[in-house]
């Protein structure tokens, strides 16, 4: 079979697949067609994240698995990069989804937007292929520019960094120009300023420095201030808009609470950066700043709890998208435990001295990223697919509803299981490696060889597989849910209450 025939077959298969999904793009506005493109790539990268996570988890149990071919460092890099990038794709998609509606006009630079999407996606594909097939280079600038920068989470080579900034600027232009042509609002203002911060912070991570203390100082500016400040506010914006549109909450209330949320998140999150500056060579005052702000960070979670109870008392709302609501509830719990409880358990310097650089961070990271960001993206995917299907009713008792329920269950139990397994491993590691053995190499391996660590890694693998199964089911469900459903979503307008502004998004977290 030659290349042309192969292309033909692939095209035919793709067409058959599109026909099978029976999704009608004419249900979507131009801006939302673009948003959907982002969501599709996000889900593909989500799949890649879990696939490479599984390979890395396997290597903890069988170190020779794919040794010398796809080493742990490669798999782990793809695992965490795919996560960061799929969540960003999700957020950009959500923003395009709400942009036309919120500004009440058409997207100004739709062509640029489409171009930027393809440029970014091709760039991501090239970066991943280089990660997988070239992997490493010589210790010089060429490697840092073309192959890999070797810095956790932002490994993308410099050329890709520049590309990412260019794409984000295009995206930013689209958002600002569209609001300027249409209508500005409080939500639009917060969104715009947040995107300025998002793009600006990325620049802080684009420079080479031999002084590793300076390098890690700026590196945390990107990682922490993205994840614990700008991303959170972005989620707040998305939720604020959703609450207005889906639950009919008054704009004034939503906007006020969005501002409260910004004050709480930035107020605790910006200086919360201090908890990453305990042990990298930076001055001792960061121990105090990091400790104090970390202790304050759960206050927004308390606000969330109070507000949720207030709203439950003031009105009851009907909901026409049960899977989305279920994922929002998963978000509330995941964020509270992952970010709040798991974060605070090991964040004070008096204990972080022992937990820093152990599986504690992995335990916290898994639950917090999932609870704070994966869940909310998945909820939005369900909202998007519902609209794409033509606003059909999506309830818990529909035909095939078992799929989303099982996907929800498997993903959540899987992630919680991994979190607990890693917690046990981290506890053992901080105890044996750090406290007893004083963090020497032999101490490290004593802890790694300990039966409790070994069995924790097996449990993590098992729950990882459960998570993976959940994702496959989720993808199947997203492709098929609402297919053949004719009942329309009930139009529900809740008269009062900011619903779950708090419940959905006011959550802050610690790492």
């Amino acid at each position, binding site marked *: 079979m030659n290349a042309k025939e192969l292309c033909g077959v692939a095209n035919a298969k793709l067409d058959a697949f599109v026909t099978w999904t029976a999704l009608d793009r004419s249900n979507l506005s131009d801006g939302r067609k673009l948003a959907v493109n982002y969501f599709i790539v996000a889900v593909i990268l989500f799949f890649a994240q879990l696939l490479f996570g599984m390979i890395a988890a396997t290597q903890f149990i069988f170190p020779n698995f794919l040794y010398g071919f796809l080493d742990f460092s490669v798999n782990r890099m793809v695992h965490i990069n795919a996560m960061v990038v799929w969540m960003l794709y999700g957020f950009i998609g959500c923003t395009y989804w709400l942009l036309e509606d919120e500004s009440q006009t058409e997207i100004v630079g739709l062509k640029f937007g489409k171009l930027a999407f393809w440029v970014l996606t091709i760039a991501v594909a090239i970066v991943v292929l280089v990660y997988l097939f070239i992997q490493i280079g010589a210790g010089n600038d060429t490697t840092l520019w073309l192959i890999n920068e070797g810095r956790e989470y932002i490994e993308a080579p410099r050329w890709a960094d520049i590309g990412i900034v260019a794409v984000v600027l295009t995206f930013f232009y689209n958002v600002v120009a569209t609001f300027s042509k249409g209508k500005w609002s409080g939500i639009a203002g917060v969104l715009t300023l947040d995107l300025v911060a998002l793009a600006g912070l990325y620049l802080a991570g684009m420079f080479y420095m031999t002084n590793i203390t300076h390098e890690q100082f700026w590196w945390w500016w990107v990682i922490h201030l993205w994840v614990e400040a700008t991303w959170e506010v972005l989620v707040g914006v998305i939720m604020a808009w959703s609450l*207005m549109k889906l639950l*009919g909450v*008054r*704009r*004034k*209330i939503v906007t*006020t*609470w969005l501002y*409260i949320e910004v004050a709480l998140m930035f107020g605790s999150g910006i200086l919360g950066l201090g908890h990453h500056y305990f042990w990298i060579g930076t001055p*001792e005052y960061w*121990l*105090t700043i990091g*400790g*104090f702000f970390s*202790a*304050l960070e*759960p*206050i927004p*979670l*308390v*606000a969330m*709890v*109070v*507000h949720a*109870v*207030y*709203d*439950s*008392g*003031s009105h009851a709302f009907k909901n026409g998208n049960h899977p989305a609501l279920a994922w929002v509830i998963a978000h509330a719990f995941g964020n*509270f435990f992952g970010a*709040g*409880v798991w974060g*605070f*358990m*090991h*964040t*004070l*310097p*008096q*204990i972080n*001295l*022992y937990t820093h650089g152990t599986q504690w961070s992995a335990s916290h990271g898994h639950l917090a990223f999932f609870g704070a960001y994966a869940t909310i993206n998945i909820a939005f995917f369900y909202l998007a697919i519902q609209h794409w299907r033509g606003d059909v009713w999506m309830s818990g008792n529909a035909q095939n509803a078992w799929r989303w329920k099982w996907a929800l269950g498997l993903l959540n139990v899987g992630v919680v299981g991994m979190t607990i397994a890693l917690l046990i491993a981290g*506890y053992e590691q*901080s*105890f044996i490696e750090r*406290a*007893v053995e004083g963090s020497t190499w032999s101490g490290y391996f004593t802890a790694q060889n300990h039966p409790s660590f070994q069995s924790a890694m097996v449990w993590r693998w098992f729950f990882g597989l459960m998570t993976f199964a959940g994702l496959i089911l989720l993808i199947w469900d997203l492709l098929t849910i609402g297919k053949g459903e004719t009942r329309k979503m009930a139009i529900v307008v809740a008269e*009062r*209450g*900011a619903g779950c502004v708090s419940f959905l998004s006011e959550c802050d977290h610690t790492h």
Partner: protein
Amino acid sequence: MIQPVAMQDFFITFFSSALIILAGASYALLFAWSKVNENFRIKIASYVSYIVLIIAVVLLTRAANFTGYWLSLSVVMVVGYFFAPIGIWHLCVKTHVETSTTLEEKL
């Protein structure tokens, strides 16, 4: 300056830290619930949660060897977690006041 946690206090440190967040949230939840539903028992339960929170803060203060200005962190937690839910509750009530809404304002 910090005094690291002693090895035998690891568990109590993790446990009391988690308990602070859980008890704080539980107090907030029950406090708000008691406002929605005037029930004496809920009110009592909320104060019980708060007492658990104080105990957890004391345990953490001792396990994490808080001395000097670090003690103010304990005070901030005890005071902050008590008043935060009350403040947020008032904020909920006042921001949700039904004002002379026009149709335009609604969406």
